[in-house]
């Protein structure tokens, strides 16, 4: 159990960062059809700088905590760096529990490294990725470019 519900995840779940919808450049609504988890997410950019990620939604502790971690980690970053973080997080989540996070990874992901244990549970990986995919989608909309991708 400890492997999935890290203290850190429970903390974010109980005390989410940046929750609530604020003004943004683009808004998306994503749903995890297998369990009904939902998120509405907005991004705000100042040039290439991500100045806010605001969100509302319902879902399990993993999806809620993940959105909170995302907010904490990405807000204030340059787009390129945020993208990098998102990619590393995706890689970790798709590792099926077989990837021991490297030091480098930990540096990039900070708190988000706590989700490593979730990657062992295929049914929950989508919960952890919900907000991250929504962010990617919203960013594409805000800045133009790639089409919506789904998990």
């Amino acid at each position, binding site marked *: 159990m400890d492997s999935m519900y890290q203290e850190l995840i429970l903390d974010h779940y109980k005390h989410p960062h940046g929750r609530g919808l604020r003004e943004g450049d683009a808004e998306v609504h994503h749903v995890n059809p297998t*369990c*009904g988890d939902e998120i509405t997410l907005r991004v705000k950019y100042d040039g290439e700088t991500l100045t806010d990620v605001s969100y509302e939604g*319902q879902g399990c502790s993993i999806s809620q905590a993940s959105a909170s971690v995302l907010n904490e980690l990405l807000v204030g970053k340059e787009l390129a760096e945020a993208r990098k973080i998102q990619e590393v997080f995706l890689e970790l989540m798709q590792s099926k529990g077989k990837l021991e996070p490297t030091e480098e990874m930990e540096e990039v992901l900070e708190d988000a490294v706590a989700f490593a244990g979730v990657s062992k549970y295929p049914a*929950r990986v989508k919960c952890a990725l919900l907000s991250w995919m929504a962010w990617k989608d919203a960013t594409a909309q805000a800045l133009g470019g790639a089409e919506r991708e789904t998990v």
Partner: protein
Amino acid sequence: MTQLPGLLDTEAIRKDFPLLDRVVHDGKKIVYLDNAATSQKPRQVLDALNEYYEQHNANVHRGVHVLAEEATALYEGARDKVAAFINAPSRNEVIFTKNASESLNLVANMLGWADEPYRVDRETEIAITEMEHHSNIVPWQLLAQRTGAKLKWFGLTDDGRLDLSNIEEVITEKTKIVSFTLVSNIMGTVNPVEAIVRRAQDVGALVLIDASQAAPHMPLDVQALGADFVAFTGHKMCGPTGIGVLWGRQELLEDLPPFLGGGEMIETVSMHASTYAPAPHKFEAGTPPIAQAVGLGAAVDYLTAIGMDKIAAHEHAITEYAVRRLLEVPDLRIIGPATAEDRGAAISFTLGDIHPHDVGQVLDEQGIAVRVGHHCARPVCLRYGIPATTRASFYLYSSPAEVDALIDGLEHVRNFFG
């Protein structure tokens, strides 16, 4: 040990089920409470499968060699067993499909391609209910889309029952088919068959009963039900995956057109035209699930030897106990009937605002297997304004101790997220 009236000797029964000895998460013996999703299989069924494959395996029908004769006798023998199990007037009314979903789709497709008086088209209506499994919703949505027929449904009351108050608007003179579940897979509700069948018969509509959650748990008598078709699935009643059943009244099966075309379902084929074999073969295209039918036959033997009435009594006792104990858990809300009357052994609930995924996961870590989500009955979740539920569901091998384990587990969940 809790003693309840009507309990089966679960200690003896559990010995027949190898999986129930499974140990998970470092030494926790599994507490399997996901029986509405699928049941475990007794040794007797696995033995029948092995014996079939090791001794008799051959393709059925049309063979003159000894294996083909044996395989055919076993396959057709399974049909006899299923016919007896549901009290079918004739063995030829029992069609083997791959699962209940195929059985339900089969009826929808027959009616879409049928001639009058059965034909579903833009002038006609289809009636279902809001508590159906997706497998008894989507085929009718597809049929409605493709034929222009109108799809109607019964709503639900706050305590998880069908709201029949507007029965005359839902089932009308235009209704060609009424399809509903005997027992809800998400709420456990047992539905009032007679009232619905009576109304359907009054307007000349056919009735299809989804007995997927009934056949495993109670005596099933298709003649007493008064329906025209009854569908159920093997894997929920101690049988293998890959097999379902559709029972239908002989004259309907004679009149209605085939669905899948292929080997076994024909009488004679030329490039220009084909004629079809009589039912049940008309509806069984291709090599059937032979071993799976044999396995289902063994499951039916197993259940019959214990007695479906005894199994129903056992589950009633367990359900009564479980409902009582669950209602003691703070913040727990049962979605569906909060009593053991007219309900089956599947109980859905929410636990405060802890998401069912989290409830299920933390229970799992204690070795308790429940299902979480919308249970392929999302309209029920929408109706009650919840994203999902946690569902515990019991079977003939479920014991009061397992109910106690669930209650303790839920306590742990509350503390964990408290």
